[in-house]
C-alpha cells in the first residue's frame, strides 16, 4: 500500500487543447504530461499565453481537452466537479457585492444544499482559517483588496474540496500584501493538507510556495521543466535569501528563457 501523501490526484497524459478562434485554431496546450500527488503544492509559471491558466481550467472542467487524458482523483474532471473535488480561486476576488462576507462564503454551501446550521458552522470555521473572524457581517466594499481575496479563498475552502486551484490569486495585489498572503497560504496548506495548484507570473512566489514548480512556455503552450523543490516544508519569509532558494529561482529563470528561444 502506497503512502497517502504520494498518491497521484491529478494526472495528465498527452494532453492537447486547441481553441478555435476567428484567426484559426490556437494550440493552447501541447502534449502535456504531469502528475500531481496528494498534498503537493504545484505552481505553474510562464509568460502569458503559455497555457498555465488553461491547464488549471481544464483540471477544473472549465475547459475541455481536445485529446489526451486528464483525470482528477482517478475520474474525468467533469465527474470530479460533481463530487466537489476542488475549490477555485480566481484572479479577482469576485465576491458578490450584494452579499455579506459570510453570505459570499455561504454561496457554494447553499448551492450544494448544506443545512443552515452546517452553513453557519462551516462559514465560521473557514473565516477563522483565513483570519477574518468578525468580518462575516461586513460587505465586500468595506474590506481591503487583500482581505477580499482571503474571503474568496475561504469561500473555496468552505465545502472541503481536497484540491484548491488558484489562478494568480494575488496578481492584483501589491508586493507587501502579497508576501503576507503567501505566508498565510503556506500556513493554510500546512494545516489542511490540501493539494494546491497555483498559477503565477512571479518567480519568487512560485519558488517560495511550491513543492513542485511547472515551468511552461508559449506557442504552443507546453511544459518545459518540472522542478521538485528541495526546500523544507517550514518556510519563513527569509528563506528567500538562502542559497537553495536562489538556485531554484535561477533554474526557473533558465527554463523560462529556454522556452523563449524556441520561437
Amino acid at each position, binding site marked *: 500500500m502506497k503512502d497517502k501523501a504520494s498518491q497521484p490526484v491529478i494526472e495528465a497524459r498527452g494532453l492537447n487543447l486547441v481553441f478555435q478562434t476567428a484567426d484559426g485554431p490556437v494550440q493552447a496546450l501541447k502534449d502535456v504530461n504531469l502528475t500531481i500527488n496528494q498534498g503537493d503544492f504545484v505552481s505553474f509559471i510562464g509568460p502569458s499565453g503559455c497555457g498555465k491558466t488553461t491547464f488549471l481550467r481544464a483540471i477544473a472542467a*472549465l475547459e475541455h481537452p481536445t485529446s489526451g487524458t486528464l483525470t482528477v482523483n482517478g475520474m474525468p474532471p467533469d465527474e470530479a466537479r460533481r463530487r466537489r473535488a476542488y475549490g477555485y480561486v480566481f484572479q479577482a476576488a469576485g465576491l458578490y457585492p*450584494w*452579499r455579506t462576507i459570510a453570505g459570499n462564503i455561504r454561496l457554494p454551501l447553499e*448551492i*450544494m444544499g448544506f443545512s443552515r446550521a452546517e452553513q453557519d458552522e462551516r462559514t465560521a470555521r473557514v473565516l477563522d482559517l483565513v483570519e477574518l473572524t468578525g468580518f462575516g457581517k461586513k460587505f465586500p*466594499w468595506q474590506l481591503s483588496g487583500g482581505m477580499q481575496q482571503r474571503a474568496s479563498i475561504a469561500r473555496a475552502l468552505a465545502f472541503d474540496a481536497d484540491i484548491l486551484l488558484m489562478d494568480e490569486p494575488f496578481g492584483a495585489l501589491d508586493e507587501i500584501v502579497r508576501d503576507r498572503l503567501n505566508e498565510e497560504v503556506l500556513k493554510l496548506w500546512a494545516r489542511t493538507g490540501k493539494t494546491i495548484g497555483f498559477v503565477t507570473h512571479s518567480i519568487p512566489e512560485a519558488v517560495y510556495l511550491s513543492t513542485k514548480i511547472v515551468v511552461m512556455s508559449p506557442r504552443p503552450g507546453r511544459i518545459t521543466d518540472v522542478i521538485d523543490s528541495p526546500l523544507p516544508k517550514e518556510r519563513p519569509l527569509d528563506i528567500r535569501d538562502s542559497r537553495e532558494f536562489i538556485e531554484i529561482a535561477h533554474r526557473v529563470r533558465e527554463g523560462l528563457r529556454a522556452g523563449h528561444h524556441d520561437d
Partner: protein
Amino acid sequence: MNRALPVLTVLTGIVVIWYAAAVWMNAAWVFDQAQRAGQEVTWAEVIPQTMDQPRPLLPPPHQVGAELWKGLFDQAVTSKRSLVYHGIVTLKGTMMGFGLGIVVGVLLAMAIVRFRVMDLSVMPWAIISQTVPIVALAPMIITVSSQLGLSGRDVPKAVIAAYLSFFPVLVSMVKGLRSPDQMQLDLLKTYGAGEAATFLKLRLPASMPYFFASLKVAVAASLVGTIVGELPTGAIEGLGARMLIGSQFGEPLIMWAALFAAAILAGLLILVVGMVERLARRRMGVPA
C-alpha cells in the same frame, strides 16, 4: 437647502415666463373686447384683465392653482368633479399597467437571455413596437377589447399602459441579467450550479440595479399610457378624460388642472419607486 436652491431657481424662472406668456396670449382677447366696445385700453389696464379670464388661452399659474385646489380639496372625493376621484381612477389603471408591464418585461427578458432564438426573434419586434405611436394604437386596443366582450375600461387601459412600460423593463433586464461576467459564471460552474441556481443566486440579484433604474421610466410611461387610454371618446373617468373634457368644452382651466394633477401623480409615483429602490439598495449592501 443646497439642493432646493437650484430647483427653486428653475421653478421661479418657469413661473415668470409663464406669467409673461399668459399676459401676451390673453391680451388679444382684452384688446378685442375693447375694440368691439369702442374703447381704448392701455397696457396698465390690460394686464390685470389677463389674469382672471374665465376662458383664457393660457391660464396664469394662480388660476390653475386655484382650480387645482378646488378640484383636489373642495369636493367630496367621490364627486365626478373631484380630481382626487379621477386621479384614483388613473392611478388604478397606471398600477395595473405597471404591474403587467413589469411581468411581461421581466418574463421576456428572461426568455431572451436564456434562448438565443428569442433574442433573434422577439427583440427586434419589441423595438418596433415602440415606434408605433400609442395614440394610433390606443383606440384599436379599446375597440378590440370591447369586441372581446370586456366591459369597462380597466383592461384596455392596463394593456395600453403595459405596452409602454414593458419596454424599459425589458431592455434593462436583458442588460442586467447579462451583466455577470465570465468569471462569476465560471465560479458557479465550479460549484456544479445548475441553471436555476445561476439565475437565482447570480443573474437575478445582479440585475436589480438595472431593474430599479428602469422602474422609474416604466412608471412614468405607464401613467402616460393610462392617460392616453382615457382620451378616446367615451371615457368619462380619469385624468385623461378630464383633460379631454376641458379641451372639448372650451374649459382650459379644467384641462390645466387635470394636467397638473397628472404631473403631481407622476411625481408621487416616482418618489415611491425611489423609496422602494433605496430600501432594496440598503438590503443589498450598497454604500449609502
